């Protein structure tokens, strides 16, 4: 549990960070909260020659309204997400999800940017971001671009981010007032990754579902945007038949691997249970 040798860099500007990333290529690794990278380094599963620490980049911290979106700096911690009054008001699913991530000690270090950029299918925020149709702001030597969360994830630990690009912020369209939401996560204990988890945001109008968006955590190589599952609810009263269709649609795209959390069959089954429970809870909130 002792990492190999590495050079440590602590840039003071985003440009400097990007320059370091360009300079060191695949020898360099960016470190934010470090809760994924440091354990990998201690096991020598990751042996970066250069560690580029983002902690001095204050410009990457903070939660701001930006037109019809909320922009959250990549270095904002999960704790800051969990206690933000702005988010609690405008996008409360983020608070609910953040509080299900690990434990308080981890949440004080772990960052939103690290969580979404790392590409670990066990991370919770990627599915939540897909559910909210958020975009990630990427900055590299060629400038800035935005990639939707729904297009960002390619395979486990592989994303649309280029080697010399930095996720600087997450931009979240503010969901309509009165929307219902829920993040249901089945886990074995505090600090565990999900056996299966489901994020749901929906809006109701005149007793029928106007929009619904569903995404899944840790039941595939990447977070899964369950488009068909959401569509199964739209235009319905979110009755038993509709929910059952949504559950089946979600289970159809789930491809969990067997691990100590359970065999594939179980993890697929509980994906359905999480979707059902998240939909039911979101529905109560939407009506309320």
């Amino acid at each position, binding site marked *: *549990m002792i990492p*190999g040798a590495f050079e440590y860099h602590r840039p003071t500007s985003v440009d400097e960070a990007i320059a370091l990333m360009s300079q060191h290529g695949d020898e360099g690794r960016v470190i934010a909260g470090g809760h994924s990278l440091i354990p990998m380094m201690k096991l020598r599963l990751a042996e970066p020659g250069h560690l580029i620490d983002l902690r001095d980049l204050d410009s990457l911290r903070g939660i701001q309204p930006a037109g019809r979106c909320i922009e959250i700096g990549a270095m904002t911690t999960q704790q800051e997400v969990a206690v933000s009054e702005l988010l609690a008001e405008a996008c409360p699913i983020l608070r609910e999800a953040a509080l299900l991530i690990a434990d308080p000690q981890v949440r004080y270090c772990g960052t939103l940017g690290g969580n979404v950029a790392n590409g670990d299918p066990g991370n919770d925020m990627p599915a939540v971001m897909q559910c909210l149709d958020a975009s990630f702001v990427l900055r590299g030597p060629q400038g800035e671009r935005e990639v939707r969360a729904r297009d960002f994830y390619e395979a486990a630990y592989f994303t649309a981010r280029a080697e010399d690009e930095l996720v600087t912020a997450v931009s979240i369209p503010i969901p309509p007032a009165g929307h219902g939401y829920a993040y249901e996560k*089945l886990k*074995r204990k505090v600090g565990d990754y999900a056996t299966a988890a489901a994020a749901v945001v929906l809006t109701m109008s005149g007793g029928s579902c106007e929009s619904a968006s569903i995404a899944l955590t840790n039941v595939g190589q990447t977070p899964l945007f369950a488009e068909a599952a959401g569509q199964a609810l739209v235009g319905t009263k979110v009755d038993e038949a509709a929910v059952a269709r949504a559950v089946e649609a979600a289970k159809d795209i789930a491809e969990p691997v067997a691990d100590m959390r359970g*065999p594939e069959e*179980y993890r697929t*089954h509980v994906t359905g*249970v999480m979707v059902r429970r998240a939909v039911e809870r979101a529905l109560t909130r939407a009506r309320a």
Partner: protein
Amino acid sequence: MTDATEMTQEEREATLGGIGCARKRKEDIRFIQGKGNYVDDVKLPGQVFGDFVRSPYAHARIKSIDTEAAKAVPGVLAVLTAADLKPLNLHWMPTLAGDTQAVLADEKVHFQNQEVAFVIGEDRYAVSDGIQAVEVDYEDLPVLVDPKQALAEDAPVLREDVEGKDNVGQGLRTHPNHIFTWDVGDKDATEKAFSSAAVTVKEEIFYQRVHPCPLEPCGCVASMDPIKGELTLYGTFQAPHVVRTVVSLIAGLPEHKIRVIAPDIGGGFGNKVGAYPGYVCATVGTIVLGRPVKWVEGRIDNLSTTAFARDYHMTGELAADSHGRITAIRVHVLADHGAFNAHAQPTKWPAGLFSIVTGSYDIPAAHIEVDGVYTNKAPGGVAYRCSFRVTEASYLIERMVDVLAQKVGLDKAEIRLKNFVTPEQFPYTSCLDWEYDSGDYHTALNKVLEAVDYRGLRREQEEKRRNGELMGIGIATFTEIVGAGPSRNCDILGIGMFDSCEIRIHPTGSAIARLGTKSQGQGHETTYAQILATELGIPSDDITVEEGDTDTAPYGLGTYGSRSTPVAGAAAAQAARKIKAKARKIAAHMLEVGEKDLEWEVDRFKVKGLPEKAATMKEIAFAAYQNLPEGLEPGLEAVNYYDPPNFTYPFGAYLCVVDVDRLTGEVKVRRFYALDDCGTRINPMVIEGQVHGGLTEAFAIAMGQELTFDETGNIQGASFMDYFLPTAVETPVWETDFTVTPSPHHPIGAKGVGESPNVGGVSAFSNAVVDAFAHLGVSHMPMPHTPWRVWKQCAALGIGE
């Protein structure tokens, strides 16, 4: 000579802080301030570090090891392999069970993460770089992870080093992968009872491989003084004196030149009883380099290589009459001991005290057979927070009683009350020849049933079942056997399992007591002082308790199997009584009366009939160094080596209520009520702490802990990512209760308690989970009761959707 206007007798008693007093633990002052001194806190001048190259394969031949590149890594001082240890005859070491274990893999590796080479360097970074640079060429071999397959006729031979030997220390072998067969009880009488029984039940009960997983892993610092030729070995040792003897035997160093020090220990639970390759390699390292060598394992090392527990494949059978009265028990165990037979039991007991398997029940006939088997897994088989194999035995009988109850249609409390040994039967000799010292099982269980409104719970359960909900009520009424042990039954490497206490009273009336045991968090500094306070009339705050340094403490067999209070606690009382006998002589001299004219009161000898004439222990202590009767030697000291006449048999009645989510398989423990009887209660607060800890570990085992292996022998779940260590969030709320049935043979009537909650707890949880499904015809479900396993049961019953 004493001022009679001082405190009343009650006040003086309270000042003592003796037996029965719920005082806070003395040692916690340093622990809660982070001021404990653990092995990794030991930093000696010139100290270097060592760690292992470990095998990625579970079974492979080592074709070559190239250490040149590793030796060239800056800061690396030495790389040891089996070839280097061979000339010293240290490449293999004896185990406590009569087998041998490779210190560094010799030609073959037998389990994943086995120690292959030991790299020593100036710091941990250099060592880790060196480990990466060692090149080992392996040729992989077929792997056996299933003990049943290991006994197949054409199974590959795992231990070529003992091939052809018909005995590796614990009995005759019948197969190259077989270690021993242990057979107890009356086979014929048992068979007869089964053939004439109105009812019989049989169940395959697997107690999974788990790991004690103490918060502090194992480690040591070995330091050779080349001038004096003396070796000092600091380590995480539950039994430091035994380690000194073993090191002397293995390393060939004279025992007086070895000092073993066990500093503060962060939990042991059986994991720190045995000897590990790290101790040997660090010792060789310090001898070779002349510098202290530290080895401290990491979490994955701890979970995957140092001693595991259980891995018992049990087949249990009960015979009974039509009323549910048990007439016989028959058990076969296939015991997976891993690659080397290195389980820690009293040497003569290949399955420990497993024959306590008749439990709290008066069963006329029993027959037990245990077969030990080699597999490609880490060695071990220690008692994880229990007396040797008692948890396995207790789990089996407590499960089987439930299975029988369901078969004959009896309530699970009723069947127990019907089969209990009765109070008037004590001392009770079981058909497997254990003499239970004392007990009152009916009172204990009835008290629990009343406290939880058992009838009410069963009514609620019935209602829930009608609504399709799953609620389970689990009962466990266990009997432990602790305090190993009488030397006629128990020895380790030929040394009787006595324990010891040496007391010195200082002239000003305070004292130091040293004992042969070693606390790992049990609170010995507090509880031993309380025993001595009551026995000696010296406030427990004025008594220092020391353990763990073999140069100063008297020889003892250490702390495990709840033996500290039953054995060393008794030695403490007996040593104190020797002191008191001498104190009486001095008091008689001081008070100018005959010894017979004196009586003891709290902290002083009084002249009978003249209460104002008294000598306090404090005054006597001073007199012991200057005012002695003719012919009596000065000083006030005593030592006692206590060989217990019998084990002690603590018991308890636990009840657990669970609700099961049939869609996710999650089990929620709604209520857990634990009544323990450990005889005389020394410190109720310490007991409650022990019970909370033991129940939490029982919860962990029953609900989540397991080490499994894939078919190529890769260990699964050997990190905290998977291995279930419950936090405060997962841990249920514990309700505790007690009865007091003193041990008749123990000097203060005390029994052990630290492990009871683990022994009884596991079956209570498991019984509750199975009970939730009992109405659906389910009689057994395998542990651990993780959500996916419970859900699979639901799915099989068609209620998982």
